[in-house]
């Protein structure tokens, strides 16, 4: 699966939690979940669990720490699928 396909899947996952639709429309590898998409911190763990479910992978807590933006998330997902 290439980065574009992964981003499309990631977009579906984060969409319900996004508060900044403008940033969401322009999502790219450098997009930050907190700063750009303004996802509430209370929902960040939901995003991680949704990723686990969608890609059928397990994200360790040390990996979760780094998943604050699209780029880091893609790297971690790619390493597991």
């Amino acid at each position: 699966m290439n980065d574009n396909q992964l981003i499309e899947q990631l977009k579906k996952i984060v969409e319900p939690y996004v508060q900044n639709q403008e940033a969401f429309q322009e999502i790219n590898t450098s997009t930050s979940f907190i700063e750009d998409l303004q996802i509430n911190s209370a929902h960040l763990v939901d995003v991680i669990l949704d990723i686990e479910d969608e890609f059928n992978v397990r994200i360790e807590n040390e990996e979760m720490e780094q998943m604050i933006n699209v780029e880091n998330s893609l790297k971690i997902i790619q390493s597991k699928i």
Partner: protein
Amino acid sequence: MLGTDLLYIDDAKRKSFKKRKNRLIEKVFSASELNLLNHRLTEKKFWLFWCLKETGYKYYQQQTGEKDKINPSAFQIDELNSTEAKVLLPNQELIKVYFKEEASLLFSWSGPKNLVHFSTEQVSERFPFKRISKTAFKQLLLKVKKNTANVPYFEFLNEKIFISITHENHWKIISFKQDYLSDLGLGIEFDKYR
């Protein structure tokens, strides 16, 4: 250093809490916290712990300048009673975090004794917020900056004055030390004091 968090439980609640409870526990809690909870975790209690951890996280970010991370289990609730908790930070500092709760709302804060919290809207009579007009609040917000670690601050005479903002519902609450009001010389007029 200071940190705050405001959480609307109804907004945070999820249909899948029961289904995901064990996985949420793994991601958010340490073993010692599970003992503190006596292994009985309601969704309300989950969000109280989250709120306390988030307050500790903001405090720690101000202290260390560390960039954003998703590491709730690194902020451990060490003691808890009906109004306050002790939170162990990743650098082993133990801080006191105060909180107030209602059926659908949680607010927690940590910092100096003269910390004040401002809100533009009525949140709750029981919560320790001072009302501030939206115009004055906007004047404040215009001066808000964020450093590379995403920590908000005012800049005044080239000095950084750290503040804490809760992002819940469009930055409704902003907190900083009472002393800074006169330093900032903003002439803020409050709608009403509490």
